[in-house]
Each structure stands twice: as C-alpha cells, then as structure tokens.
C-alpha cells in the first residue's frame, strides 16, 4: 500500500465520521428546538386549562396591549442582531435600547410639560433616539468596538442624560396624541394594541419581503461574502443601530401614554427585550432572529406574566423563568451553531 492511498483512506474515514457526527448533531438540534417549542406550548396549554379567564378576549387584548412597548423595543434589538450576526459575544447587540427609550420618554414628556406641542415633542424624541443609535453605530462600525461594550457604554451615556434632564423625578405629560393612545380604540381593540399590530406588519414587510431585508440577513450571516457580493456592509450595520434608536423613540411615546408620565427605571426592561429577541430564534429553523419569532416570544413573555398572575403564582417567578428561558435558548443556539460550524 502506498502512502497516498493510506492517506486517502484515512481522510475518507474521517469524513465519514464527521458526517455521522454532523447528522446526529443536526438531529439533536431539531430535537432540542422542538423541545423548546413544545415547552412553550405546554405552558400555554396549562394556562388555557387552569388559569381562570386566560382565554377571554378581554384578557388576551390586555396582554397584546401590555406587550406593545416590549415588542417595539424587541424589534429594534432583533434588527441589530440580524445585521450584526447572532453570535452572543461578538455579534450585534444593543444594550442601550431600554435606557435610550427612557431618555426619549424624558425628552418627550419634558417638552410637553414645557408647553410644546405633540409635533415638536415627537420629532425631538425621534431625533434623540436616532442620535443615540448613531452614537452606537459610530462606536461599533466607525471605531470597531465590540457591540457588547460599545452599547454598554452608550447605555450609561443615555441613562446619565435622562437623569440630568429629569433629576430622577416623574415628569407628567398630557397631549392629544397621548389621550388618543390611551383611550382610542378600533374594532374593540385599543390604540396601543393596534400600535403593536401596525409596527409588526411594517417590520415583517421590511425585513422579510424586501431585498433590503435579504441583504441585511446576508450581512449578519456572512459579512465577508456580503462584502464580496458588493453590499455596503458598514452602512447596513450602522442602519440597524439607528433603526434600533428609532424603535426606542417610538416605544418611549407608547410608554409615556401608558404611564401618563416619563418615569425613571426604564433600563429595567433590558432583560425582557433581550429575552424576547433571543427566544425568538427558536421559532426559526436555522436559529436566526426573525420578526415573527420575536413577536411570538414577546407575546409569550406577556402571557407568562399574565398566566402566573391569573393562577395566583408569585410574580417573583416570572423573572426566574425568564432568566431560565434565556439560558435555555442561548444553550440551544450555541449547540446549533456548533453543528453549523463543524459542517
């Protein structure tokens, strides 16, 4: 036997082994993914059967309403993760999004309380939100800082600016737009719930039905390939951060309407936003973030808190369960990515 044949034989057996390993791993991934979805379904089924009033239309609309703010924020986060890639440590992430919402809410409420109209106040909130987004883009794309660190720093900038502006106080606000968001309804569904429906539809259209969305997935999935295909990668990534800031501003207006004020402590929402965007990936076959997946997980998180309350289970459990789910999903996705990498 010559050395070359020996070499090819070893190579072939290696490949066979790798293929077998891959196949079992892929199977494992499917099992884990379906397991996660089955767990979601089981929890929901349990609520349907045992939580009194869970399935009433009134209650379900309540949950959609309660999910609107989280949903809009989670879409921003989802876009950043799509564009930056879903690697948890090095991929796209916007830790500043909740603090940015707090800042935008403070700007919006402060301007309203100073007597400026909705038009100017909304414009200012959007401008501030997008400016913070642009700051993220500058740090990540321009300076090449790891998104995890860059947006963590910007989180502090935004939170500090909010504190400076409000002195950590509650700033009450009233306006025609806020009154409409609070009490307006159409077909028995409140304006806030409609806001979630509308934003979801727009986001799904942009991300999943335009060539822009397709290119964005290409940028996140394989930046070198995207660059080779002539896509302006830095522009796309920057865009996601600015859009995330825009989402923060939209969410801030919804928040002010719901709380009739801007209040300190918006940063607390970050964990839920991250949970929603990460959980959403289990609803896609390739574990990529999708708008539909994020919407489902936002509603799931809302239903979780709601179901627990209806069952009279302590609200302290909700945070714990949320944390456990994040851990599960991150484990599942890294497992899945392992199989893709070794392919």
């Amino acid at each position: 036997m010559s050395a070359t044949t020996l070499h090819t034989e070893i190579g072939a057996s290696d490949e066979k082994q790798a293929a077998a390993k891959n196949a079992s791993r892929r199977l494992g991934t499917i099992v884990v993914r379906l397991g996660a979805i089955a767990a979601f379904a089981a929890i929901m089924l349990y609520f349907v059967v045992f939580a009194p009033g869970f399935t009433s239309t009134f209650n379900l609309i309540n949950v959609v309403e309660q999910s609107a703010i989280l949903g809009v924020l989670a879409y921003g986060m989802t876009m950043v993760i799509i564009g930056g890639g879903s690697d948890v440590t090095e991929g796209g992430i916007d830790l500043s999004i909740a603090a940015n919402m707090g800042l935008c809410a403070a700007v919006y409420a402060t301007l309203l309380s100073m007597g400026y109209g909705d038009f100017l106040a909304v414009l200012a909130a959007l401008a501030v939100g997008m400016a913070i987004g642009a700051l993220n883009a500058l740090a990540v794309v321009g300076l090449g800082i790891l998104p995890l660190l860059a947006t963590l720093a910007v989180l502090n900038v935004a939170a500090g600016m909010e504190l400076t502006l409000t002195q950590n106080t509650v700033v009450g606000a009233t306006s025609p737009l806020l009154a409409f968001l609070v009490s307006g309804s159409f077909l028995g569904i409140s304006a806030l719930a409609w806001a979630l429906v509308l934003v979801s539809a727009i986001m799904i259209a942009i991300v999943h039905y335009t060539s822009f969305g397709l290119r964005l997935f290409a940028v996140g999935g394989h930046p070198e390939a995207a660059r080779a295909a002539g896509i302006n990668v830095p522009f796309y990534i920057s865009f996601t951060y600015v859009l995330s800031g825009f989402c923060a501003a939209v969410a801030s207006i919804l928040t002010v309407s719901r709380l009739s004020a801007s209040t300190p402590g918006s940063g607390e929402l970050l964990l839920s936003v991250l949970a929603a965007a990460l959980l959403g990936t289990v609803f896609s076959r390739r574990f990529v973030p999708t708008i539909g997946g994020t919407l489902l997980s936002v509603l799931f998180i809302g239903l979780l808190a709601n179901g627990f309350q209806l069952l009279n289970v302590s609200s302290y459990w909700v945070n714990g369960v949320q944390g456990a789910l994040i851990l599960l999903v991150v484990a599942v996705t890294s497992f899945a990515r392992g199989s893709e990498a070794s392919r």
Partner: protein
Amino acid sequence: MSKSAKGIVKGLALGLALACSLVSVSGAVAEELSLKGKRIGVSAIGTDHYWDLMAFRGIQDRVKELGGEVIALDAGRKDQQQIAQLQTLIAQKPDAIIEQLGNLEVLNPWLQKIRDAGIPLFTVDTATPHAINNTTSNNYNIGAEIALQMVADMGGKGNVLVFNGFYSVPVCKIRYDQLKYVLASFPEVKIVEPELRDVIPNTVQSAYSNITDMLTKSPEKGSIGAVWACWDVPQIGATQAVEAAGRMEVKTYGIDGSPEVIKMVMDQKSAAGAVAAQQPYEIGQTSVDNVAKHLAGQKVPPFTFVPAVLINKENAAETGKPFLAAAEKAGVK
C-alpha cells in the same frame, strides 16, 4: 342586705352587664369581620424597603386571618409592571383591591379604571380621590413633629440639606409641605438650594456621596445644621457620611422607623437626630379590616390613621424598644 352591700351588688351587676355588652360588641365585630369566600387583590410598587415589606405582609396576613384569598402583586419598583399587574387584576374582578404606594401621576388613571370597573379600591399610604379609604400614618403630624424636632435641635437657626426626590409620592409631598410650613415660622432655618435628590435603588450609597459632597463644599463647622429626608433610607447614608466626615454637629432626620435607623437614634454617639417611627404592619392590617367592614356594608371613613411615634435622642432608649421587638419578631433586622 345592707345598703352598701346592695350598692356593691348593683355595681357588680352593672359591671357584669357592661362587660357582657362589651364582649358581645367585640364578638359582633369579630364575627362581622370576615373575608370568607372573598378575593382581595393587593398591588405594591415594591417591597425592597422595610416599611413596604411590613405593610405588604400585614395586608396579606390579615386577609388570610379573615379567611379570604389574596392575590399579592409586587411590581419590583417597575411602574410598567405595576400597571400591567393592575390591568390584569381588573380583569380578574376581585372583591376589592388594596393599592400600596407608587407614583400617583402614573397610578391615578388606572385607579380610576378600578373604580369604573366597580371594584372597591382601598389604599395604603396613598392619598387619592379614587380610594374609599386610605390607611396611613398621620403624615401631617409626623411631618410637623420631625420638622419641629429638627428646628429645636438646631436652636432655631442654620442650614438644612433636604432630599426631595419623591415629591410625586403623596406621603412625601405632605411631609415636605409640613417641613416648609414649620420653617415658615423660623426664618433663620434655611434649606440649601438646590435640594438633593434621593433615588431608588442605591439610595444609601447615593445619599452618602451626596452628603459627603455637600459637607466638603461647606467645610466650616456649623455651616450645615441638619439633613432631612421624607423617609429614612437616605438618612442611613446621610448619617454615615456625617460621621465619616467627623461633622458631628450635623444631625439627620427621617421618617418610617426602619430598625437600622432606630438603632442609630438610640446610639448617643450617632449623628441620627430623630426618626418618626410608623407601624407599617398594623397599617396593612387595618386597611384589610376596612375592606372587610366595607364589604359587610359598614361605613368606612375616607382615611384611617395608625399612630406613629417620634423617636429622638432623649426618648429613644424607651420608645425604640417595641419597634425593634416587632421587627425582630418579623425576622427583619
């Protein structure tokens, strides 16, 4: 039977009758106060502070004692979460809702919705026109007493550092307004502007650094006479800061009576001047009694005051003890 013996018998009979009637009255009250088969929703903005936790526990324990079912909701200091919890609670249609503290500006539209849904609303330490009854301490009294104690300790003149971060919380508004009212009569006591902002969370650390900064800014002894806060958690940080800076001429004043602060006031070497100690557990329980009375068709006043005690350097050894004993019993240090 002699006249005096007759008198004694008569007196005894009368006493017995009175005792019987008293027993029967209290028996009737005990009988009437029942929440059997009732579901009571309880919503608290947070329970991270001693006062909040004790009141929240008092409510839950009393509902259970009276045979009711309690839906207990702690929003963990998140307005967003409290609103969501209240919204779901309204859909659950409990027999009554007790709301404990929070930002009135945020809460009021939702408290209105509770009333619109026909659910009797009771509040703890939260004055709002939407509640049938607000059970609380007499904050007008407390506010004036602590302010007067401070003025007395200062000898009627000097500068005060004031924490005023929670004016939107009704009880803080009352206490602060009372402070201002008292100070109006003592023009030589001045509040240092701008006022300080107490925060949640990190209240103690933040108060510590605020006071340290202010003392550094006014280094001459006597330039600052006192520190005031509408609750006592900032007082902890302030007291530590004063002691660390060695400025023992500055005394601190606060309200609530957390065990830690009571111990500070008891300690003659501590800079804690006085604290108005409330009975949060009893406040929670009394609120539930009011719910039970209302559901039994009895008339309930718009507010119920549970007594509070001013603990100062002179009386602390005596007055502080029962409060510390209660805290120990509850397992809170």
